[in-house]
């Protein structure tokens, strides 16, 4: 059995400005953010800087976080819902090094949560900021490859082709065959990509108390959903939007209301389903909820780092 190990985060590196970016760049990003908040769902071009992390690895989210973070903030970073995935660890260490801020895994304790591919299960509160890492900000890109054209489509509210695509899915498969990056209509005006979160998370964006900021570094776009904004997943009256469901609850914490990851346990088809939001799962287990495989070898393989 492994014991809990602790290691120091890197100390604050004084060679760099607080939160890495220089103040003029932060001001530029904040201006873009203000515009984005003022026009919910609209993609604001910004002078995305080259960062010491690779494009596609969260440079947009990192620049947004760097522009809004202050010394008193508490930062949580998740990838796939988990705090301990390698890139989440890498980004958390980056901010510990260049900003020296407090970090946490507790969703409720964080003032800023940077995320890739998930929204935490616990409802966010007023005053919290959720920063999304966005690989492709343009929801229409698969329908129209030209940026000049898609900007016109947004300006004109020309979203017919998107509905046609959804309709064609229904005609062929009986369902909309989009499971993540499921497009939403924000504030009744702009069709927006929610980033590659599973559509399971889309309803959490609607009327959220938290400020939601989206950064696409490589594509040089920022967009936002201010608190208490209407966010509607695109659908049809006779084919209403639905989220994924599982046949069984989380094998560790017995949650029936969370997004589950499938974990392959052997090469004979054995599998278990566990919460993708690791902090949510731990909180439930601490509160006494016990899943089917908690305490078994398979369960221990996933929880050993906590023991």
């Amino acid at each position: 059995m492994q014991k809990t190990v602790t290691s120091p985060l890197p100390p604050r590196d004084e060679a760099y400005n607080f939160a890495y970016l220089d103040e003029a760049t932060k001001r530029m990003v904040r201006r873009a953010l203000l515009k984005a908040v003022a026009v919910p769902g609209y993609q604001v071009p910004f002078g995305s800087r080259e960062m010491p992390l690779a494009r596609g690895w969260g440079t947009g989210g990192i620049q947004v976080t760097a522009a809004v973070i202050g010394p008193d903030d508490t930062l949580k970073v998740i990838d796939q819902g988990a705090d301990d995935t390698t890139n989440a660890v890498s980004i958390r260490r980056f901010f510990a090094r260049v900003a020296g801020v407090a970090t946490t895994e507790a969703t409720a304790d964080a003032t800023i949560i940077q995320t890739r591919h998930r929204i935490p299960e616990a409802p966010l509160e007023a005053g919290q900021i959720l920063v999304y890492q966005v690989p492709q900000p343009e929801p229409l890109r698969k329908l129209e490859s030209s940026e000049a054209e898609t900007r016109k489509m947004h300006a004109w509210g020309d979203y017919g082709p998107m509905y046609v695509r959804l309709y064609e899915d229904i005609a062929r498969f009986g369902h909309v065959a989009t499971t993540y990056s499921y497009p939403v209509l924000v504030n009744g005006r702009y069709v927006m990509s929610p980033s590659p979160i599973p559509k399971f998370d889309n309803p959490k964006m609607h009327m959220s108390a938290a400020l939601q900021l989206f950064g696409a570094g490589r594509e040089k776009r920022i967009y936002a959903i201010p608190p208490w904004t209407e966010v509607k997943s695109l659908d049809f009256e006779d084919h209403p939007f639905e989220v994924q469901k599982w046949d069984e609850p989380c094998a560790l914490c017995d949650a029936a209301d969370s997004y589950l990851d499938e974990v392959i346990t052997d090469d004979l088809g054995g599998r278990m389903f566990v919460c993708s939001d690791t902090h949510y799962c731990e909180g439930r287990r601490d509160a006494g909820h016990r899943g089917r495989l908690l305490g078994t070898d398979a369960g221990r393989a996933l929880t050993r780092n906590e023991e």
Partner: protein
Amino acid sequence: MYVAVKGGEAAILATHDLVAEMRRGDPAIPELTTGQIREQMSLAVSRVMNEGSLADTDLAALALKQAQGDAIEAAFLMRAYRTTLPRLGSTVPLDTGAMAIRRRVSATYKDLPGGQVLGPTYDYTHRLFDFSLNGATGEQPATTLADTPLDTRMPRVPDILGAEGLMEPETPPEGDPRPFDLTRDPVEFPADRDVRLQALARGDEGFLLGLAYSVQRGFGGNHPFAGEIRLGEVPVELVPEELGFAVDIGDLTITECQMVNQFKGSKHVAPQFTRGYGLAFGHAERKAMSMSIVDRALKGRELGETAAYPAQQDEFVLYHSDNVEAAGFVEHLKLPHYVDFQGELELIRRLRRELDERIAREAAEAGVLAAVTQ
């Protein structure tokens, strides 16, 4: 500040050590110095300076050493560093006509003012291994100086054609505004030429080479002639605001290529030659030539040509030629995607189940029908 170490964090720390070990290789072999890289791997240094958008041979050599010779990783290091550097000012435009020439060739004229200067080139070497390079020879290669120095002023070929009115004129836009800086501001499309040239200058050599080749082979309407390629040193001058006159701040080694292209003219433009322009830090002929061919292809819109091929489409070329961005996005596929994949798994299982159910249902109905008709 302490947080619990989980699998990811311990692994990341360990991998940094492994990289350092792998980079060093066999400790019995002497370690490379950055000076050796700068002097003896100078073409690699040029490439890293170009794609890293930073003219500093020492840093480029360090980047190559740190990146184990991976040009794209080295360019990435250069860019992540340059993004933190303050901008002190803009230099006066380089006068490549005043270049201290080391090499200058033209394919359009047999001879021209200033002459053809072959200079250092691999063009006429036979690609046969020189096994004597296997060990350190310790010998200083012998070169001989020419009897007469080169002309101090060598006119550029497009200027010669321009004097006759055969070359499209290129004049700075009204007021000669400061060029766009794509590292500071987001690019908008259609992109103007200053933006395009800047993007091409930092674009991946391999990608631009492929695009230029596609233009030549038929995926593009132009037949280029290498009007001129020149390599040498040019002085860089800056006008400090408080002085008001130009100060020489050093020399830069650059490669310049001007491609001459046919143009049959259009309703409004007389037949003339058009130019494609390529400029690169250091000795980088393949890069400068590729850049100039793609630059010309991208000028199609201004000349009224249809953008039928990839090399003529600015969105395609500019979005995809940046190898640091491209590598980042392609390689981000290594990051976990299991949340999205779970969504796809659930969907494909459901679709397959529904198909099986429908086939079974239809088979059952067909069976009933067959029984009835019998």
